[in-house]
C-alpha cells in the first residue's frame, strides 16, 4: 500500500515536471514568434512592476535598517563598526535584494496570476479563448513571464538602493555613526562581480515566479476550492524554488568570479 502511494506520487511528480517543462518552453518560445501581444506586456508590466513598488521599497528599507542594526553591535565588538556600510551594501546587492524582492513579488504576483488564471479556467474562459482561436499561453502567459523578468530586474535595483538608504538612516540616527563614512564604505568596496551577481538573479527569479504562477493557475481543477489550492501551491513552490535556485546560482557565480573575489 505504502509502495503504491510512493509509486503514484513519484509518477505524479515526474508528470508535473514534464508538463511544466513543456509549458515553460512554449511560453518562452512564443516571444520570438508572432503574434506577440505587446499591449498585454505593458499592462502586465504596470501591474507587476508599479503595483509591487510599495512592498519592495518598504521591505528594502526595513531590511537594510535591520542589517545595520544587527551588524553594528557585532562589528563594534571587533572594532569594525566602520564597515557597516560595506556589509549592508554587499549583503543587499548580492543576496537579500534579489531574494527578498523575488519572494515579496512572488507572494503578490504568483498568487495573483494563479488565482486569476485559475478563475478563468473554472469559468471556462480559457476554453472560450481557445475556442475563439487564441492561444492562452501566448496571450496570457508569455506577457506575464516577460513582464515579470523585466520588472523584477528594476525592482531589485530599487530594493538594493532603498536597503542601503535604510541602513544609512539607522547608522546615522540610531547608531550615531558618520553618514559619509557609511556611504563611502558602501560604495568603495562594491565590485563588478557583486553587481553582476545581484542583477543576474532577478532574471531567473522573475521567470520562476511568473511561470509557476501561470502553470498552477492553468492546471486548476475543482472549482473555487481548486483556485485556492492552486494559489497556495504557486506561492509555496515559487518561494521555495527562488531560495533553492538562489543557492545554485550563487555557487555557480562564485566559481565564475573566483578570480575577481
Amino acid at each position: 500500500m505504502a509502495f503504491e502511494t510512493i509509486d503514484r506520487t513519484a509518477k505524479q511528480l515526474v508528470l508535473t515536471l514534464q508538463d511544466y517543462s513543456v509549458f515553460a518552453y512554449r511560453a518562452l518560445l512564443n516571444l520570438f514568434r508572432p503574434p506577440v501581444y505587446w499591449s498585454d506586456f505593458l499592462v502586465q508590466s504596470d501591474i507587476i512592476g508599479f503595483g509591487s513598488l510599495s512592498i519592495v521599497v518598504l521591505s528594502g528599507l526595513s531590511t537594510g535598517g535591520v542589517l545595520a542594526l544587527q551588524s553594528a553591535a557585532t562589528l563594534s565588538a571587533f572594532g569594525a563598526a566602520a564597515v557597516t556600510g560595506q556589509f549592508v551594501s554587499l549583503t543587499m546587492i548580492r543576496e537579500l535584494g534579489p531574494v527578498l524582492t523575488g519572494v515579496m513579488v512572488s507572494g503578490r504576483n504568483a498568487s495573483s496570476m494563479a488565482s486569476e488564471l485559475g478563475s478563468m479556467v473554472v469559468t471556462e474562459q480559457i476554453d472560450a479563448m481557445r475556442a475563439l482561436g487564441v492561444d492562452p499561453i501566448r496571450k496570457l502567459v508569455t506577457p506575464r513571464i516577460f513582464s515579470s523578468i523585466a520588472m523584477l530586474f528594476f525592482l531589485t535595483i530599487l530594493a538594493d538602493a532603498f536597503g542601503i538608504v535604510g541602513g544609512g538612516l539607522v547608522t546615522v540616527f540610531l547608531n550615531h555613526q558618520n553618514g559619509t563614512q557609511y556611504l563611502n564604505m558602501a560604495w568603495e568596496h562594491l565590485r563588478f562581480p557583486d553587481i553582476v551577481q545581484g542583477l543576474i538573479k532577478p532574471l531567473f527569479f522573475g521567470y520562476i515566479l511568473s511561470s509557476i504562477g501561470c502553470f498552477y493557475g492553468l492546471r486548476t481543477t475543482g472549482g473555487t476550492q481548486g483556485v485556492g489550492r492552486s494559489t497556495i501551491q504557486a506561492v509555496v513552490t515559487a518561494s521555495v524554488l527562488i531560495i533553492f535556485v538562489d543557492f545554485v546560482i550563487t555557487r555557480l557565480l562564485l566559481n565564475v568570479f573566483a578570480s575577481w573575489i
Partner: protein
Amino acid sequence: MDLSPSTHLVHEPASKAEASPVLSFSHVTLAFEGPPVLDDITFSVAPDETRILLGPAGVGKSVLLKLANGLLSPDSGGVYLFGEDISHMDEELLFSMRTRTGMVFQEGALFDSLTVRDNVAYQLIQEDVDEEEIDARVREALRFVELEQTFDLFPASLSGGMRRRVAIARALIHKPDLLLYDSPTGGLDPVTSTTIIELIVKQRDVYHTPSLLVTHRLQDAFTMCTHRFDPASGRMVPLPEGQTDPHTTFLMLSEGRLIFDGSLAQLVTSQDAFVREFLS
C-alpha cells in the same frame, strides 16, 4: 422525412446528408481515470442541420461538445471537423480550425475584464480588424440578440440570460460554419430560456448555420423543432399542427453511449426504455 417509430439505435442522422458532413464522430471513446465518459460515439452533423443532443446531467454532453472543436482529444476513434481529422491535430493548427466554429458555453464564459464590445469583438481584435468595422459588426451582432444597449457594459453588470445572449453574439460575429451550444438555457427561468431558444431558432432560420446543441431540457428541444422564425413579425412562431422542422434532429446520450439518433417523430415513438423514461 421518415416518421416511422425507431426502436433501435440508428447511427445515420434522420435527414441523410448528401453533402459531406461539417462534423462527424467515428467510434469516439474518451475516459478520465475510470470508466469511459463517452463510449463508441458515432454520428454526424450535415450542412444546414441542427442536431440537439439530449441526456441527463453528467452524462458527457459537454465533453462531447468539447471534442467537437478539439478542446479535448479522444482516446480512440476520429473526430472530423470540416472533413479534417482533428482528433490528434496539433494545437497550433487547431486554433485556425476553431475560428470557423462558434461556441456558446454553459455560463457564457465571457471575459470579466473586458466590456461587452471587446468580448463580442474578441476574435476581430486579435485579427487587427479596423476599429470602425469592429464597432459596426459588434453592434450588428448585439442587435441580433437585442442587446445593443449593453455595448459599453462589463459582464458583471449583466443578468445570466443577457450573458448567454452576449455569448451567442460573440459566437456569431465571425459568421462561423458550425455552431456549438453547451446548455444555453441551463439555470435560466422559463421566460429567459424561451428568449434564448428564440434567438437560436432565429439564427437557424436566418443564417442556416449547422449546429450542435446540448441540453437536458426537453421543452427547449421540442420548441426548436416545432417553431420557426417569422421575419415579418421578427418573432418565433409555431409551425402548423403536425409539422416539425425537417433540419432539426435529435441525439440522446445515456451512460456515455449514444442510444438514439433520429427525428422528433422517431424520438417520441421510441420504445427504448431510457428514452421513454427521459421523455416522461
